[in-house]
């Protein structure tokens, strides 16, 4: 019995880890002109590796759930940035997860460091 419970728990955990957005959709979305006027690529670079200005963050390789969190916070006004507010307004929850999956899966110099 305990073994079954453990197996179920493990499955649930695995499921929750894999419940991520679709990176392929996110890639298209990041370039899309229609969704949020110019898309993410205009400022962050298509892979999220090349911010066009020093105050824009690198997105590539950032944690998936942090990116979801940031976009969601911009969308609901918890985080304030005039540009990001406009960009995130048109995004659905699924869009946000897809974009986060795309940028999180890209390589960059972002890393953990003591």
């Amino acid at each position, binding site marked *: 019995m305990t073994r079954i419970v453990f197996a179920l728990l493990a499955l649930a955990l695995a499921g929750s880890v894999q419940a991520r957005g679709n990176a392929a959709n996110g890639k298209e979305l990041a370039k899309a002109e229609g969704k949020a006027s110019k898309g993410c690529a205009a400022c962050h670079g298509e892979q999220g590796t090349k911010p066009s200005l*020093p*105050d824009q963050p690198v997105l590539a390789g*950032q*944690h998936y759930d*942090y990116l979801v969190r940031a976009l969601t916070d911009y969308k609901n006004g918890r*985080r304030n940035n005039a540009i990001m507010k406009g960009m995130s307004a048109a995004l659905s929850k699924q869009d946000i997860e897809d974009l986060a999956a795309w940028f999180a899966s890209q390589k960059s*110099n972002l*890393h*953990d*460091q003591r």
Partner: protein
Amino acid sequence: MARFLFSVVLGVMLASGAFAQEKKARKKAAAKQEQVAAAPQAQEIVGDAKAAHDRKIAMCIGCHGIPGYKTAFPDVYHVPKIAGQQPVYIINALKAYKSGERSHPSMRGIAASLTDQDMADLAAYYGTPVK
């Protein structure tokens, strides 16, 4: 008497004008010298990565130095990777936490204790400007 007063006032005005101009020139020279971090928001402050490493990162590494570390409150998600991020973005984030514009209880508390120099130092230590 009136003429004397007038000349005193005129003298003070001229002197302060000259002083302001000298100040401006000095600022310009300082701005030219400063190329580290290239932070438009913090032009007089040069970040010192070594100072950050020796004295200031202790409060960061407990969360940002542990691979896969997650926030505990109020919501659970991975703390962002900050090493390799753009220095100016790091400074702006810390300032926004300090002012309360960006809200995360732990980061608000940490950022509140940081001076502009601390922030520049940490940005110089963790950040890498993207060319």
